[in-house]
């Protein structure tokens, strides 16, 4: 019962957005509100696709989020492997430095980041959106913690059997931390999909812009078209839902059971 109330409370705003997106702006503030608009009004969506580069924004967002996620998973898992399993001078130092940098708030980094990206001449490009998020060390720590859980003997055995470090990473470590990486990937993708401030600063062209920024641009200082805004939000939620549903299939947990004697 409590669950039901909770779900209902969470759903109401969402349903309101859905309902609003199918209404004309003029009928928005009728009281009591009609939950089911009649007649259903498609004008908001037509305007979204006709007057604004909504499809382009979606593609941009999917591309940037996908690229960031893929590259991040690759880098984080390799760095995590090195930090978890390899002996090298200064390993603790590196880990500590990374840990400290996690503690720096994003807002303190935005302005220096802007100058760096401008210096590199990357402003207003996809690179400006893809490169900076890769520097976030949180994923390295998560990957490291997954990998620390793999027994050392597994790699020792593979090494003795003739596997190179890279083969161990590819053939032993990666498959074993896949469930963790899927979670990390979804998390990263989601964060990128909804990221707002940095794209707002780094990219000016409407054609290169991402969804979050694009949609917020639908409202201007003088005109509050709630219907259009709601339509944008609803349409933006669809691609990420599809992505999640697809990824869920990859969510086959293969745990470590069977590696060792229990």
């Amino acid at each position, binding site marked *: 019962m409590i669950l039901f109330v909770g779900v209902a409370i969470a759903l109401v705003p969402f349903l309101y957005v859905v309902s609003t997106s199918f209404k004309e702006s003029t009928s928005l503030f009728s009281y009591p509100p009609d939950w089911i608009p009649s007649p259903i009004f498609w004008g908001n969506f037509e305007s979204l696709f006709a007057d604004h580069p909504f499809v382009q924004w979606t593609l941009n967002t999917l591309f940037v989020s996908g690229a960031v996620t893929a590259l991040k998973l690759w880098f984080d898992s390799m760095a995590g492997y090195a930090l978890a399993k390899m002996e090298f001078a200064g390993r603790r130092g590196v880990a500590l430095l990374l840990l400290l940098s996690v503690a720096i708030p994003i807002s303190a980094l935005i302005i220096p980041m802007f100058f760096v990206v401008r210096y590199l001449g990357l402003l207003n490009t996809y690179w400006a959106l893809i490169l900076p998020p890769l520097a976030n060390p949180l994923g390295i720590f998560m990957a490291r913690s997954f990998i620390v859980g793999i027994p050392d*003997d597994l790699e020792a055995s593979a090494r003795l059997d003739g596997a190179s470090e890279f083969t161990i990473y590819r053939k032993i470590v990666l498959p074993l931390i896949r469930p963790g990486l899927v979670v990390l990937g979804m998390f990263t993708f989601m964060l990128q999909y909804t990221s707002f401030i940095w794209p707002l600063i780094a990219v000016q062209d409407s054609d290169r812009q991402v969804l979050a920024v694009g949609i917020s641009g639908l409202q201007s200082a003088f005109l509050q078209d709630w219907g259009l805004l709601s339509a944008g939000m609803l349409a933006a939620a669809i691609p990420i839902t599809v992505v999640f549903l697809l990824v869920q299939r990859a969510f086959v947990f293969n745990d470590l059971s069977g*590696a060792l004697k229990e």
Partner: protein
Amino acid sequence: MSAMSPRADVAVSLIQVAKSYGDVEVLQPFDLQVAEGEFVVLLGPSGCGKSTILKMIAGLEEVSHGEIHVAGELVNYVRPRDRDVAMVFQNYALYPHMSVRDNIAFPLTMSRRPRLKRDVIEARTVTAADIVDLTPYLDRKPAQLSGGQRQRVALARAIIRQPAVFLMDEPLSNLDALLRADMRTSLLEVHARIKKATLYVTHDQIEAMTMADRVVVLNAGRIQQIGRPRDLHTAPANTFVAQFIGSPRMPLHDLEVRDDGILQLADVTLTGDADVPLAPGASVTVGLRPSALRATSSASACFVGEAKRRDYLGSDSYLEVDLGEGLSVMVRAEADAEVRPGDTVRVDADPGAIHVFDEAGARICGASVCRRER
């Protein structure tokens, strides 16, 4: 050191090998040679450095000091995979995401010189699986196997490499007693079939005594004794070996040698078997091997004492017998012998029952009962 270059029929040779982690010495310098086809067991309590020895031979741990030769070649600086050794890990270390087939084939799929053809790998995988009776399980994942089957996968993965030397780290330690006995037999069968030098680690003395050609007894990073199982039993080098080997544990008694060079244990006198008589006044330790002492009804028995407690150990039972003066020994008794606590028990000692150790614990000699006084 290279002057002691190993002979040709020696598969593994360790020369003055030692290991320390920082300042902590975990293995004192020692020598060990394993002949072709020999089955050598490293035996010792937990933490004594058994796994460390295997890992150094495999190249997974650096050697702090000394030389390791495998098949006549110095391998200190050779990469693990080029050392021609295969290892069965203390915890099988199977790859959980791969099928049994892929697990067994893994070392071959890694081989680059020469790179092996798919059908060659498959054929050798099937052969290796057959040796350890795993053929019906090739397509399963490790999680779908019993403990004994997983152990055999690990074994097959070692066999398939056809190495010069097998290293096995407590491969049976987590199996139940019945399965362990079975696996012991099948391991020995496999060994008899492929006849490769094997270094086998265990902390189970029964495993060591039943499987080994030779046993290396270790304690706290030091080799205590290297010898055939019989020798460890009949002539333990020191009190540690004497107590570690044999069940029940050998009780020890501290004594002082009498002025006439004779030992007196309660009301029984003993003479040392050594050519040199025991030094009068010296402090020694005497151990009486329980399995060589028998409760008897014969009037000529060596010891007489009072029965205290009885332990059943399979077909035999052991009696704790109080000899007076605070000395008690464990003696073997027929399982059906009617002895109750408080009864008087006569005890006969077989040859080799009594061992005399010096103050430092090193064995001086055996001893025999000369007579009962009083």
